[in-house]
């Protein structure tokens, strides 16, 4: 039998419906057995009538009563089966509902850093298709396991009272099914794992290829990508075939046991009847009962196929649920009272990405005074975005501490931290909806005036003028129908409207033209600026020139930190960066 522990955890909640499903399944089987008795009786009466050669008409009248019983029981069975289906589906829906809710919650609990490492297509496969596969497994396969244990056992018992040899024969046939399933179970388990992994990665590959289809077209690489998809499909096929070979083995054993068992029992019963050791009516009963013995097993076999996918999906689900979050909230985390705006400090922090050889940050220390604007600059790959993730606690340092107003971030509840901070990420992601929806979502309680203030500060008003429906224009998936700079401005307005005391801008104006950038920078330094602590990562001189403090990162180390004017005088890294900028413009005669 295919039983999975993760699923069982969720099944307990649907106990009631499942128990009812089992009962109805048993009742339907009982109706079928009753029908078998009645039909045996019909044939027996007709045969005995014709054998006696007596008044055939009256004897036939006798056969009508069992025939009516058979018909009535058959209709009852139809009703019972209908009802069983309803219960089965309700039970399954209940379980799926819980599993999905848990998965989504866990997905969010795993946090942003995990989301960056995971493959969205795979998660979609688990959460949508995987959970759907549970329906047949939970609603139909599991209850049928009970039915196919109870019914054959009972019927073999009844058969034994009539003809022990036949009962033994049927019992052997019946038992061969669970034994075959047991024998194949380990193999199936492994294959199920392989199959699910292949399915998941195929799903992920499809999603990835679709997301990059424009790149493929402009590289003229759609054919090659199509081939690669086909190759991966081939891997999935291989995994599925291996899987099927295993389950076909069980299928063949079951099918053979059923047809050989029924046929063998029938012939044996006929022989016994001919020898006179079995009463005629019992022979017929054996004939019909033997078939009923195998019926639940046959149904189990049908559900097995679907249930099998449920089992492999369950492994995928278990795997996701068992993944620990990248940053976990401490059980004793308590909200701290923070000043508005708070100060931040990074003390001797080292961080290495899993799988990387070099740390992305080494022994980084820096102080970000309350209410100040601190610029983080440095070459691409220096570790600026990594530092941002540590400041927001998307990542925890390997060593050293990041603190807000003197409290280690790890001591605070994640919620408090996230309310305190707002980020405009380097890769802006907008949610499907209008421009307005995207800004509004950061502050459901803000009034329109507050939102409009943020809209103006981020220069979204200017862009709305050029959109077909102004602020109500849909932004498309991930914000795809906006230009790069428009997307950044919407993200900026969204962060501003959240009114978080700590604002982190990671290359937030890199796609803005200088005019808009100047206006945005102006607004950021304008009224209300000292109500927040601002961290700006940027390359453009104009974006960072007015900050209170400049931190220069290079290859994961802080090479310089101080007020811009001071650093410029010192002639260190920052001064050199200025010099290069100036030189690059001077050569073209732009700065005279």
């Amino acid at each position, binding site marked *: 039998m295919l039983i999975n522990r993760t699923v069982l955890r969720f099944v307990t909640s649907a106990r009631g419906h499942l128990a009812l499903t089992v009962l109805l399944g048993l009742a339907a089987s009982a109706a079928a057995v009753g029908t078998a008795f009645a039909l045996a009786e019909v*044939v027996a009466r007709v045969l005995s009538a*014709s054998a006696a050669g007596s008044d*055939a008409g009256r004897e036939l009248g006798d056969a009508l009563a069992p025939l009516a019983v058979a018909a009535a029981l*058959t209709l009852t069975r139809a*009703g019972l*089966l209908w009802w069983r289906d309803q219960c089965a589906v309700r039970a399954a829906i209940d379980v799926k509902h819980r599993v999905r*809710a848990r998965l*989504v919650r866990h997905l*969010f609990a795993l*946090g*942003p850093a995990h*989301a*960056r*490492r995971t493959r*969205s*297509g795979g*998660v979609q496969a688990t959460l949508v298709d995987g959970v759907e596969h549970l329906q047949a497994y939970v609603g139909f396969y599991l209850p049928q396991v009970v039915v196919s244990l109870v019914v054959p056992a009972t019927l073999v018992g009844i058969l034994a009272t009539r003809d022990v040899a036949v009962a033994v024969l049927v019992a052997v046939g019946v038992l061969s099914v669970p034994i075959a399933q047991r024998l194949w179970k380990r193999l199936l388990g492994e294959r199920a794992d392989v199959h699910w992994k292949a399915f998941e990665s195929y799903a992920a590959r499809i999603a990835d*290829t679709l997301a990059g289809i*424009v790149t*493929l*077209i402009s*590289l*003229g690489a759609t054919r090659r990508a*199509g081939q690669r*998809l086909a190759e991966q499909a081939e891997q999935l*096929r291989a995994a*599925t075939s291996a899987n099927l070979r295993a389950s076909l083995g069980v299928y063949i054993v079951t099918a*053979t046991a059923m*047809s*050989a068992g029924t*046929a063998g029992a*029938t*012939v044996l*019963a006929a022989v016994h009847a*001919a020898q006179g050791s079995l009463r005629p009516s019992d*022979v*017929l009963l054996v*004939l019909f009962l033997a078939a009923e013995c195998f019926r639940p097993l046959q149904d189990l076999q049908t559900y097995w196929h679907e249930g099998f996918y449920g089992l492999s999906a369950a492994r995928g689900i278990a795997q996701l649920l068992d993944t620990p979050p990248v940053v976990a909230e401490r059980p004793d985390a308590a909200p701290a009272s923070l000043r508005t705006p708070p100060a931040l400090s990074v003390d001797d922090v080292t961080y290495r990405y899993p799988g990387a*050889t070099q740390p992305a940050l080494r022994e980084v220390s820096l102080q970000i005074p309350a209410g100040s604007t601190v610029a983080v*600059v440095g*070459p*691409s790959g220096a570790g600026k975005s990594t530092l941002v993730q540590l400041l927001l606690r998307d990542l925890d340092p390997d060593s050293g501490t990041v603190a807000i107003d003197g409290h280690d971030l790890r001591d605070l509840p994640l919620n408090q931290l996230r309310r305190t901070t*707002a980020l405009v990420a380097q*890769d802006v992601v907008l949610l499907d909806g209008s421009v307005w929806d995207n800004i509004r979502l950061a502050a459901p309680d803000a009034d329109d005036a507050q939102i409009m203030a943020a809209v103006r500060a981020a220069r979204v008003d200017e862009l709305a*003028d050029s959109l*077909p429906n102004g602020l109500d224009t*849909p932004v498309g998936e991930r914000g795809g*129908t906006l*230009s790069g700079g428009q997307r950044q401005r919407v993200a900026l307005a969204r962060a501003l409207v959240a009114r978080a005391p700590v604002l982190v801008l990671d290359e937030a104006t*890199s*796609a803005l*033209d*200088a*005019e*808009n950038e100047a206006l945005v920078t102006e607004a950021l330094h304008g009224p209300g600026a000292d109500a927040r602590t601002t961290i700006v990562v940027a390359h453009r*001189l104009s974006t960072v020139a007015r900050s209170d403090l400049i931190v220069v990162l290079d290859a994961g180390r802080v090479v310089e930190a101080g007020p811009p004017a001071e650093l*410029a*005088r010192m*002639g260190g890294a920052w001064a050199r960066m200025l010099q290069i900028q100036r030189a690059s413009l001077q050569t073209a005669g732009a*700065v005279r």
Partner: protein
Amino acid sequence: MSHPPATGVSHPPATGVSNPSATGASNPPATGTPLLSFDGLRVALGPSQPLFAVCVLLNLVSAVAGAAAAALGAWAVSRAILGAPADDLWLPAVLVAGCVVVRTIAVWLEAWLSHAVSFQMMARVRGWIFASLARIAPAGLARRRAGDVATTTLTDSEALEIFYAHTSIYIASSVVTTPVLLAGLAVIDPAVAVAVAPVLVLACVAPLLLRRAAIRHGQAIRETLAELGAEVTENVGAVREIVGYGLTARREERIRHLDEKLGRLQVANTRRAGLETGVAGVVATLGVVVAGAVGGWKVGDGSLAPELLAPAMTLAGYAPSALLQLIGVSRHSGTTRQAAERIAALLYAPTPVDRSGTGTVPDGDTVGLAAERVSFTWPRAANAMRDDAQDAAQADTHAGPGPDAPTLQEIDLRIDAGENVAIAGRSGAGKSTFAALLARLADPDDGAVLAADVDLRELSAESMAAAVGLVPQDVFLFHDTIRSNLLLALTDETPPEDETLWRALETAQIDSLVRSLPAGLDTVVGERGATLSGGERQRLALARAILSGTRALVLDETVSQLDVANERGVRDALAADTSERTTVVIAHRLSTLLGAERIVVLDRGRVVGDGTHDQLLDSCATYRDLVEPQLAALRSSPRM
């Protein structure tokens, strides 16, 4: 003014997009062919048609052998009851055993072969879908959510495969098997056969009567699942935003809502499907009961041998077996139909950019680019879709002026072969849109874009890819190794020496990073390149474009996330690169603009300036606004 050659008319996928022999995929059915039809099946089967026929035959054999075994058994039993000696039972016993063996073999073979057929067909259907996606992207995909399209490729194709590889076998087999079994019954007794026939009709009628409801349910369920898929995908991509802005509860609620909707639909569906299960569960027994009644009566009046009553009843029980198989899968017919419709919507979607041209760019070193009175407006598909009454009402109250001006208007521009031109302009001016037209991701509404004086619409897909390369503003890297990401740019079947890859990486100034990675070129970069920094991703995409060796290169903000030193390194390396090429650089940053020989200024979709930095400072107000803040920052920063 030249007009696009028959855009908007659908074409079979262009050569170069799908190569039937290479991918093992066949061409999709002719536009408009219903997928769930004999024609659809025939095309999907392709070369697997004989295998399919064998499956139908095996299904027939297993059904008949099963029925024969049971009927012979019943006959033996009846004879025994009626007093035949045990020795007379040998013949039926041997026959029964033979039938069982035949049936077992047939069942096993059919299971094997039908799965082989199904995999071949699935590969074919997925091949069609992908070729169609490549044909209609990006414009044809704009109104579809990515998660939704993924569902179609993955799950809908499975549903279609079930139809092709299983349902259709059962249909064919029911048509053949049922009459055969009924004929067998008629041989025993015609009256019994006639009486049982209506029961079989009942087995067909129930699903047919419920068909409409089945389709409706299937449609709603499928749509909800697709929505759920799209929602999940969006959530995974936006976890940072969702947890950062405290949206978790709301997003969980949205999923819960969809899930509940799905549950309600499935309950409604089961109310119907349960009827089918019920009917399927008793049809066989009903047949037995009817045969028992009629047969018993005929035994009574002496026209049927008594030992044939039980075999007749048994056979009557087997008569609907093929139909039952069919009911078993046709319970999903609604889902199948909806899946087929969604696939058809992709397969038969009109071609927004027809890449079936055959023109080539003359051989030579570089190509010049030109735009001739080009106008372009982005389709408003996304709006139109949501335009239900409520949204429209809201739009009226909130909307800004909502100008209907085209995104690009009458752009006339020549970029000579080998020239290095920069394009500047405010955010939203239409720079990336222009780049998209240069790379032919879309065709202009009016006017023409030319490469080496050939209209892009006339070029074959390969010549186009070889002529113009684009590094888009949002670079995309695949979840794969750096090597695979780079190799996408090359058409040759044999992969080049690593040396070639390293040279491209060096030109893009990303070689040292790649060398420092644990697996070097074989490092996997994560989804969308997530394990790299922003600037590293840009440089890797640049390296890929350089490797492709296109003769004109359009770089959309490709160095925006590099520091100035790095940016200059890239620029110098590109200039020193031996292969001559035309370069169009889109940038905001002054230092980048100054690297070009000529700067073109766009404003609200029009060209408003064209010249060198000094000329533009004097003549172009838009340009002055664009660069003045950057000059000011530099002037005010303290000198050493």
